[in-house]
Structure formats: C-alpha cells, structure tokens
C-alpha cells in the first residue's frame, strides 16, 4: 500500500449518475488516480464493508458520498464513512437535499411499497412483499429496513462540504478535485467547513443568457404545449422555470437549451426553503389583484408542490407530506 491519501466514494439511495459524472471528468481521473489511493468505491472496484471497518478513524482523506438515507444500511455506511473520513462531501442532490428519491416523502411508506409491488409494471400475482428477515435452513437472512421518510446525509451525519447538482457538472467536479489536490500539497486552502463547493453563489437566472424584461403573468403554461420564444426569459412567457431560486453553477444549461430550470442545483445562497422562495417568486409576478382570477391563473400550475420540491423535499423545512410522517 502506498502512502498516498485515500479516496472513497459511496452511493446510498441514488441512481448512479453521480458516478458517471465523476468519470466524465475524462483524463482528469488520472490525476485522481495519481494523487489518491482509491480504497472504496463500490461502483468502480471490488471492496467490502469490512475493509472500511478495519481502517483507522480518519484514514480516508476524501469521501464523496452521494445518495439519500432510504434505509438502515445507507445510514450505517454513512456513519461508518463519516468516522473513517477526514473530508466528508455530501455529493450530489440526493445526499444534499433528497432529490428524486426524496419525492417518496410525499407518500406514506406503505403507499411507496404498494406502488413498487402491486402496480401494473410489476408481475406479482401472489401480492408478496419482501420481508426484512427470513429464516432459511442455512440460517437467517436479512435485507435493510426502509426508513419511513428519506433523510438527507446531513440529517444523519456531520458533513464538511456540500456539492449540489443532479448530477454535479463534470467541470465543477474537476475544479474541486484540483482544489483538493492543491490543498493536499499546501498550495491552496480548503473553504470553511459547511461551505457549498463546486457551484456558484448566485442563481441560475444570473447565468441565463435569455433576455429579461418585466415579468407579468396572466397564464401559466406547460412548455411542451407552447411555442416558446427562444430568446426571452421562460418565466416571462408563463413557463414555470425554477431559475429564480436555484443555485448557479450549471451555466444555465437547461434554459440555454430551451427547457425550463427544474432546480437540480438546489437552493441558492441564503435560501432557507427552496419551495417557499419559489412560491414567493411565482406569486409576485402574477398579474392580477382579484382572488378568483388569481386562482384561475394558479390552475395553470398543475402540480405546484412537485414543481417546487422536485429535488428539495427531504431537505426542506417540512421534509415530507403529512401522510408520510404518519406512515
């Protein structure tokens, strides 16, 4: 074993896109290999939990942890890697704020399981459910137990840095890798604990190339049903674009390509509750003072809670719907 600093990456409740994004830094991955010993990265190499358990506390220098806390295995590994890592990065939207897996927090956990095991895409004629523990002739076998609500990483362990994005943009990952390597060589300083790295401090609107005039909305529409002006601010055209509350750092990729921002970079600097900020922003630009007319305009937002909390539900102030808490 060399004396290089150790690197780990783990996925909890996530899709694997964060791993792809890391590999998308292309030849820079060779710098990672040159600077670090990759000791634990289930997607890319064979390693066992017991290998990590055998390490000393703080032995891993950099741990990129992506994924939300969906079950007790996720939480166990999060706590284990926290103990063994010097720098724990909450990597990607799932770890930072719940992301798409966090949308399950709109439903009670039994509804989530029912959807997975009884709906039309599932062939389950006997209506079976997986049991967390089962006795076989060879002994008892177990699988992880689901949490009633998905939690973010920092709701379970202490986190050093946050790196938002679904997934984080590869150029941002490359910049962070460069920074950490420079810091290890004493050529740069790491940002203060708790900082958001690999992203901007402003909003997506700030990076968006579209023209902005006065926002005054008489009707909300769905982008797939409209011919949107390619130059003009999407929100001005009545397309619910989450740019005003979303953190910059992606170079406004979606609005530049003609699609609305859906908010994957999470809350902008200073935003406590992402959805609440968007409620404020959207309601402010509605051009009506009459309650009935306002209601009619709001009908154009088909699923406001889903629109405002697509990525952020588990990390929001309310964390879940009421039914999920009872479950």
């Amino acid at each position, binding site marked *: 074993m060399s004396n290089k600093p150790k690197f780990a990456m783990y996925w909890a409740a996530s899709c694997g896109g964060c791993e792809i994004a890391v590999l998308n830094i292309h030849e820079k991955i060779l710098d990672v290999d040159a600077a670090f010993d990759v000791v634990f990265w289930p997607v890319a190499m064979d390693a066992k939990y017991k290998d990590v*358990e055998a390490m000393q506390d703080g032995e891993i220098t950099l741990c990129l942890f992506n994924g939300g806390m969906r079950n007790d295995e996720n939480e*166990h590994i999060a*706590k*284990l890697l*926290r*103990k063994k890592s010097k720098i724990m990065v909450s990597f990607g939207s799932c770890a930072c704020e719940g992301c798409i897996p966090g949308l399950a927090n*709109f439903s009670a956990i039994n509804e989530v399981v029912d959807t997975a095991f009884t709906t039309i895409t599932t062939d389950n004629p006997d209506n079976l459910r997986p049991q967390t523990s089962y006795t076989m002739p060879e002994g008892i076998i177990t699988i992880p137990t689901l949490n009633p*609500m998905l939690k973010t990483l*920092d*709701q*379970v*362990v*202490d986190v050093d840095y946050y790196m938002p994005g679904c997934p984080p943009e590869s150029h941002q990952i490359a910049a962070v890798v460069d920074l950490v390597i420079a810091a290890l060589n004493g050529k740069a300083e790491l940002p203060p604990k708790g900082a958001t790295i690999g992203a901007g401090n402003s909003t997506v609107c700030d990076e968006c190339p579209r023209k902005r005039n006065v926002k005054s909305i008489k009707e909300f529409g769905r982008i797939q049903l409209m011919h949107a002006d390619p130059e003009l601010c999407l929100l001005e055209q009545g397309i619910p674009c989450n740019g005003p509350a979303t953190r910059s750092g992606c170079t406004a990729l979606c609005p530049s390509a003609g699609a609305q921002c859906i908010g994957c970079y999470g809350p902008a600097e200073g935003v*406590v*509750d992402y*959805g*609440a*900020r968007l*409620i*404020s922003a*959207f*309601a*402010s630009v*509605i051009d*009506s*003072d009459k*309650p009935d007319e*306002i*209601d009619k305009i*709001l009908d154009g*937002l088909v*699923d*406001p*809670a*889903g629109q*405002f909390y697509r990525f952020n539900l588990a990390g*929001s*102030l*309310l*964390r*879940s*719907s*009421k*039914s999920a*808490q009872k479950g």
Partner: protein
Amino acid sequence: MTEETKPFEPVIIGFTCNWCSYRAADMAGIARMKYAPNVRLIRLMCSGRLDPTFVFKAIAGGADGVLVSGCHPGDCHYSTQNYKAMRRFQLMKRVLTQMGLEPGRLKLLWASAAEGQMFANEITKFVEEVRALGPLNWNKAGAGIPVEVKEEVTA
C-alpha cells in the same frame, strides 16, 4: 396533569402588518376586548413582507395554525403589496394542501386599524376552527434547526 390529559390548546402564529392589522390588535387590547389568547402575533412592516418561509417554519416548529393579516385591498400603506401577500397566500395554500395540511389551518384576514372588534371576533373564530381540527404535530425536527448528530458507529 400529564401531557396527554391536558386539554388541547392550539398554538397559532399570526403575522400582522404594522399599519392596519397590528393596530387593529392594539385597538382590541386598549379597548379591553376579550379574545382567545392562542395567537402569537408577529409584526411585519407589511403583509407583503411575508416570506412563505416564515409560515413553513411556523408549521415545522409546531404551530397548529397560521394567520396572515394585512390592510384591506386598496388600503395598503405601501400601495399594492397586500395584493402580493394575497397571491402568495393563495399559492402557498395550494402547496400546503397538497402536502396534507388541512386548509382550515391557514387564514388570511384583512383588518383596518379601526376594526379591533372584528379582529378579536375573527381570531376567536379561527382558534375554535383550529381546535376542532386537533393538534398538527408536524415533524418538529424540521424547524430549520439542525438535527442532533449521533456519533456512535456500530462497526
């Protein structure tokens, strides 16, 4: 009395504007009008200052209902900001209803500085409505307060 046997007293957070609705509350106080003591009033300069974040935080922190109050439409001290509050309230109510909150836990009330009696009556009415809905008990850990981090690792 233990926690369980105590009769339920709703906790309601009320946001009032400096110029009309807070003065209505003041008037009710000066005139010694009686009304339910369940509302904790927070004075903002204008109902248009109400960031929906305040309401979400109140709910996450254990409030059973939230009152938003401002000048009557057309009477805003800052000309039109209470309309902004109205639009935010309507959108916020939709989102919170989707999240399972009973719409009856939210109330928008316009009150002028002269309407102390009306303000007092409406509050008493709202408190009874929320009382009928029962305790909300939203997950208290979500109130913007960092959750306790447990260090132990079962390795």
